[in-house]
């Protein structure tokens, strides 16, 4: 069953189409990879799905509800959460407080929020740093903090925007395991990632975007063997 | 009908001076993304400078701008180098507070030196006027408008034709790209602040024969300068010119058709409306 349906979504800025007539479905519990060269409109699509932009045309359907025009906070409450390409820690708050802000989406009690937050920090193995200021963390831990923070909002669908960007090999591996762990808990994920090996490994299906349009869609095997993809994207990134 | 044209004309005349203040603020914002809350106070310093040159050396206020402009330019450049330069990457609210603080220092220092008494710079022509098609025009206002027009023309020439002018415009458009293109952004910032201060100081000199001079006059003009630049679109020189004239006319019309007490309210309401419905200014594309 599809948890998310993107139906003919277009987004125009002035006369330019950042997304043009994109359609696909994300199956419940799966990992959907979203790839494409720089400027292909991946982040714009995330913004359209999560309420930061209203699609100029088309529909975003989440759990059967039309999401167009809903504000990001409503989107989050409905069970869809996102991370940011450029991490956005709440710098002058502690790591625990950061995650608690996420947890407060589901509870009004600080005590309950603290418990949820500590749980999520354990999931990303950062419970030892709960009292540190978020602004002072190195990039790898900031990424993990952001994961813990969105997990604390108890999402059913998680949109991850380049969570491995700027990380070294072992840090990336840690995130990969985390993503697979999240999947095992039944949370659906949509992942934008540049590293092809990683995306092939974790995704159940992959959507390829170029110049705002959907080029193709399929299993990782189908996508790597698609000549159009090789021309438009893989050729470029492998050169 | 005469009253209408009368107020329209005096609005345009004073609007020219407002435009100078607005252009200064907009250049500073364009190049450094800093809103200069000390702008009116810099103008106030220009007024006192003009007043002193007149009272001590007998130099006519309109001639004294030849001295005021370079002094104010150096003053602005120093402000940039010593203070503003250090907060270019700070939070916007800290930048605003720094300039508020600098403004407070300026106005209170002037108050220490000159007390808060109103000073009047009265020239032989301060209250004389000329008649044109039955409309009377205040003579000092008319002269100041001519000078304003000349300076504005010179400014446009500077920005369009000279290398430095173009470099400043490039910096205002995209600071990082300008840096990549080899423009000395630091130097442009200093020049921009100097230029902004010089323009504010000139405006101060030009209005000194028609306004009371006192240390706290700055804040009113700072607010007006914001209104002008937001109206024209932050960072747009053409916009600020237009904004200045619009505010001049709105004030003068407001004074005639509503009451002089309410004219500033008209300006601020206009300001809020623009912020709400056309935040990029009347001309501009969004910069927000």
């Amino acid at each position, binding site marked *: 069953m599809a948890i998310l349906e993107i139906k003919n979504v277009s987004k125009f800025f002035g006369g330019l189409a950042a997304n043009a007539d994109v359609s696909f479905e994300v199956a419940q519990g799966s990992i959907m990879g979203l790839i494409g060269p720089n400027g292909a409109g991946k982040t714009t699509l995330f913004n359209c799905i999560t309420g930061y932009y209203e699609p100029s045309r088309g529909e975003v359907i989440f759990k059967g509800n039309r999401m167009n025009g809903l504000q990001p906070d409503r989107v989050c409450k409905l069970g869809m959460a996102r991370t940011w390409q450029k991490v956005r820690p709440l710098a002058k708050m502690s790591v625990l407080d950061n995650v608690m*802000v996420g947890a407060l989406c589901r509870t009004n009690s600080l005590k309950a929020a603290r418990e949820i937050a500590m749980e999520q920090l354990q999931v990303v193995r950062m419970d030892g740093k709960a009292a*540190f200021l978020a602004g*002072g963390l190195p990039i790898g831990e900031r990424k993990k903090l952001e994961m813990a923070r969105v997990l604390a909002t108890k999402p059913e669908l998680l949109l991850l925007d380049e969570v491995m960007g700027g990380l070294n090999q072992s840090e990336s591996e840690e995130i990969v395991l985390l993503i697979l762990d999240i999947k095992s808990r039944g949370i659906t994920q949509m992942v934008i990632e540049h590293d092809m090996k990683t995306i092939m490994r974790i995704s159940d299906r992959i959507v390829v975007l170029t110049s705002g349009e959907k080029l193709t869609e399929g299993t990782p095997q189908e996508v790597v063997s698609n000549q159009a993809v090789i021309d438009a994207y893989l050729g470029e990134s492998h050169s | 009908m005469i009253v209408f044209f009368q107020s329209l004309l005096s609005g345009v005349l004073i609007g020219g001076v407002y435009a100078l203040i607005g252009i200064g603020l907009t250049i500073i914002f364009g190049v450094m993304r800093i809103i200069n809350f000390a702008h009116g106070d810099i103008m106030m310093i220009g007024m006192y400078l003009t007043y002193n040159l007149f009272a001590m050396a007998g130099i006519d206020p309109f001639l004294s701008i030849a001295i005021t402009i370079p002094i104010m330019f150096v003053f602005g450049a120093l402000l940039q180098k010593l203070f503003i330069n250090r907060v270019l990457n700070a939070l916007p609210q800290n930048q605003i507070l720094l300039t508020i603080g600098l403004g407070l220092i300026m106005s209170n220092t002037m108050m220490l030196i000159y007390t808060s008494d109103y000073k009047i710079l009265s020239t032989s022509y301060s209250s004389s006027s000329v008649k044109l098609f039955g409309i009377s025009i205040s003579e000092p206002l008319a002269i100041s408008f001519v000078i304003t027009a000349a300076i504005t023309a010179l400014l446009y020439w500077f920005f369009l034709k000279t290398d430095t002018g173009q470099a400043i415009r490039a910096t205002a458009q995209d600071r990082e790209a300008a840096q990549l293109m080899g423009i000395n952004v630091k130097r442009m910032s200093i020049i921009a602040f100097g230029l902004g201060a010089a323009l504010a100081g000139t405006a101060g000199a030009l209005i000194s024969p028609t306004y009371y001079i006192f240390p706290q006059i700055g804040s009113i003009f700072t607010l007006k300068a914001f209104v002008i630049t937001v109206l024209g679109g932050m960072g747009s020189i053409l916009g600020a010119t237009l904004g200045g004239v619009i505010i001049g006319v709105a004030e003068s019309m407001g004074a005639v058709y509503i009451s002089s007490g309410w004219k500033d309210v008209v300006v601020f309401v206009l300001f809020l409306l623009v912020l709400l419905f056309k935040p990029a200014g009347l001309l501009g594309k969004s910069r927000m």
Partner: protein
Amino acid sequence: MKDTSAKNVHGKAGFKSAEPIVTLLVLAGLALFPTLVSSPYSLHLMILLFLSIIMGQSWNIVGGYAGQYSVGHAAYFGAGAYTTMLLMQQWKIAPWYGVWAGMAVAVVVALVVGSICFRLRGPYFVLASIAVAEILRLSTMNLKDLTNGAEGILATEIPPLTIAGKVITDFSTKVPFYYIGLGLVVLTIVVTFLVQHSKLGYYFQAIREDQDAAHSLGINLTFHKNIALIVSALLTSLAGSFYAIYIGFIDPPTVLGLDISVQIVLICIIGGIGTIYGPVVGSLVLVPLSEALRSNIIAEAIFATGAVSPTSGVGVFLKENLAHAHALIYGVLVVVVILFMPDGVLGFVRKLTTKRKGERS
């Protein structure tokens, strides 16, 4: 950001446990102060200090915690001052009813400001908040029939405070004002404490740190900004009412002017924003300094050093004018604070002490 290199923020457990005791001791001392010190000037200074703390603490909620730098708080201060004063002078309504009306007016103003200004961010929000306060000041100047315009309002007589027919105080000395001020300080600090230790506090700070991130975590930005502003406006209005009744005279520039708005912000900036101690520290720095200038203590000190003779031309000049330039100290302080201690005096001291500790270990 990087220089704070992930320091432990909950590391002062020993200090925390001593906090309630210290607070109680300070409160007891403050409560006893008027019985020990009877000089009206000392009481006056304390009342000014209280007023400053109330104003700073109120702004802190929307500016310090929620990060919305309103430079138009004179609007709420003036709303409280004018409403209370007008009700008392024109309609003989006692101030302890008037303050409620003042708070109601402040909320209305806050709702208007919120609906206009919170659509804007950063410098545009600052400018809009100034514009609204200026419109209020100019309107008060112009609505002469209602507000007496630029001439202001003088309190001719404050009705005595009675409870069940029994006169509690007739406000003939500064003592009742002292206790009201102290009470308001406690109130604003308690409110701030409650906000800080609730969901609201977390949400406000998240909005301050990153609006887009906060939005994505399920925080309704407009709603929470408005709540912060309303709480802040209510408390600021109380400060305005208190000021009006205590000083006994208000006019548009003194209670609705841009100066008041700026002063309110500076109290927090100088102390350090987003903490309960910030406004207290800021007030402890600002009030004595500006009073010292106002009462010519600074001029006397300059004469005492022998650098300038009080009878010389410069001396006479300083004596006459330094008092008027007390706002100079605000300017100098804010420039110094922004350039050298962007986290306020409190943050600066904290940084110094943590550095020391680092050196020792």
